């Protein structure tokens, strides 16, 4: 017997819809669990005080500072490098064997898993360059790790700038760099910012690459050579060593909320850009 194709059509629609909502449901469930278990354990004191007894009591202030420092500093290094690479690839060269090789390099970096960045950062920065477990080693490792994201999003943003803007600028006898700096980059800025925000989110949530480069000291990092513990690493240690479930959930809430808000801001900016150009 042959089933009516229209009935199959309806059944498929129901099936696909429910799968899409099931998947969103996973996200909602994750956020809900973290929120409801973490919220009762969170207060100003938890955020602004130092951990005591390996994190069993007290707060997470040093980890918050460590996370902000490592994310900000690696963004500060990766942004000029990444945006510069994107400008070079889009404005200063034609598609050639050379750009193909550079793009291959960027794609390969993007595919390398974070544990291998950790392994590299550990042997190169921590051991060979004798930085020890330090903020600096963590920052340099994360800089390389987030570089591909910044390059790719900046390239997309720069390519989306209408050609006419450049032609007008050149016709006013502006040089290439003047055109890039005063016309192209300002128009591409929101798109570039989206890439930067997504990279901040990635840096904040990273564990495997930071634990072996920045280490896991519970002290407040006050110099580039100090070891420190990011929120993600602190959460990992609390959860894995079963130190304190309440503190683990509370730390997870701070971590997840900050990453989600960073990402939501990034998507908001991206949507503004899309509606502007379409």
């Amino acid at each position, binding site marked *: 017997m042959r089933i009516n194709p229209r009935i199959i059509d309806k059944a498929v629609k129901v099936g696909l819809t429910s799968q899409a909502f099931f998947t969103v449901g996973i996200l909602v469930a994750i956020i809900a669990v973290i929120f409801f278990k973490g919220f009762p354990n969170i207060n100003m004191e938890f955020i602004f005080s130092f951990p005591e007894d390996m994190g069993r009591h007290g707060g997470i202030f040093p980890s918050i500072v460590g996370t902000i420092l490592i994310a900000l500093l690696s963004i500060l290094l990766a942004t000029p490098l990444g945006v510069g690479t994107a400008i070079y690839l889009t404005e200063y060269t034609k598609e050639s064997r050379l750009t193909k090789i550079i793009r291959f390099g960027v794609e390969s970096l993007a*595919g390398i898993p974070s544990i291998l960045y950790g392994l590299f950062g550990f042997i190169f920065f921590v051991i060979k360059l004798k930085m020890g477990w330090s903020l600096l080693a963590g920052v340099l490792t994360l800089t390389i790790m987030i570089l591909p994201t910044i390059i790719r999003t900046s390239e997309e943003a720069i390519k989306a700038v209408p050609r006419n803007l450049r032609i007008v600028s050149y016709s006013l006898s502006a040089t290439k760099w003047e055109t890039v700096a005063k016309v192209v980059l300002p128009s591409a800025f929101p798109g570039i910012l989206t890439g930067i925000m997504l990279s901040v989110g990635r840096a904040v949530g990273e564990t495997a690459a930071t634990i072996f480069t920045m280490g896991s000291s519970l002290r407040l990092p006050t110099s580039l050579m100090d070891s420190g513990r990011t929120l993600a690493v602190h959460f990992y240690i609390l959860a894995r060593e079963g130190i304190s479930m309440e503190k683990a959930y509370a730390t997870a809430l701070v971590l997840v909320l900050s990453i989600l808000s960073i990402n939501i801001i990034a998507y908001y900016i991206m949507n503004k850009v899309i509606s502007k150009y379409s």
Partner: protein
Amino acid sequence: MIKTKIDKEFIVKIILTTFAFSSLLFLFLIFSFILFEGLPLFLKVGLKKIIFGFKWAPTKGSFGIFPMIISSFFVTFGALIIGAPLGLSCAIYLSEYSGKKMKMFLKPALELLAGIPSVVYGFLGVIYIVPIIRNNFGGAGFSLLATSIILGVMILPTIISISFDAIMSVPKTYREGSFAMGATKWQTIYKVVVPSARSGILASFILGMGRAIGETMAVIMVAGNALKIPTSILDPLRTLTGNIALELAYATGDHRMGLFSTGVVLLVIIMILNYIANFGIKRRVIK
């Protein structure tokens, strides 16, 4: 005046070129340092004894990582079995069925799954998935099954966003042609749209595999990390990534070199997967 302008242009070009080559320099550094630390052990112990060796006792001179290679592939395929159908369904729903407003909400929501840190996935796996498996199917719960479920969810954003792009790039005229022949929506999707987008969809699966095989923190939390080849989906296992992360902090000498050898094997697998995925995507663009 004109001269300084030209000088400035020249300097800017030099700086930008240097920046552009930094990515290649970093890639070179990563490869050379991991290879430099990992390869000597292959020469000393022998390639065969490492890759096909069953025993990992690095302080006693045994560096066999065969069970971990197999385990890494097991969890990767497990993740694909769970993540691929679900991810593809979401991509099809987003591109073919959802309205504009729904898409504006669903797409970012699904991409937010990628923002949840892997330690959080691992933690929730330990708290919820592991006990469910232990209580309903037996065993310790820390298992191939638990790892596959967690990884299956973690690779969803990769599969959804790349398949979605591939499906969206199928020309509208293909669909219209199919509708004009009297095909229903679903017939159009599975006979016209999905086959036209297949190389992109395949690339999304392969990139998802790359993500799963490289995932570390979530895996060591739910996998159980036992040093043997799992014989059932309820057995614990240790992946290549897990091996590195579990022992790197305290390993020295040959033991540490063994971990870098593990890294070399992982790096080779990842590069092959990325090469295949990029090749697949290129074919789509050319067509």
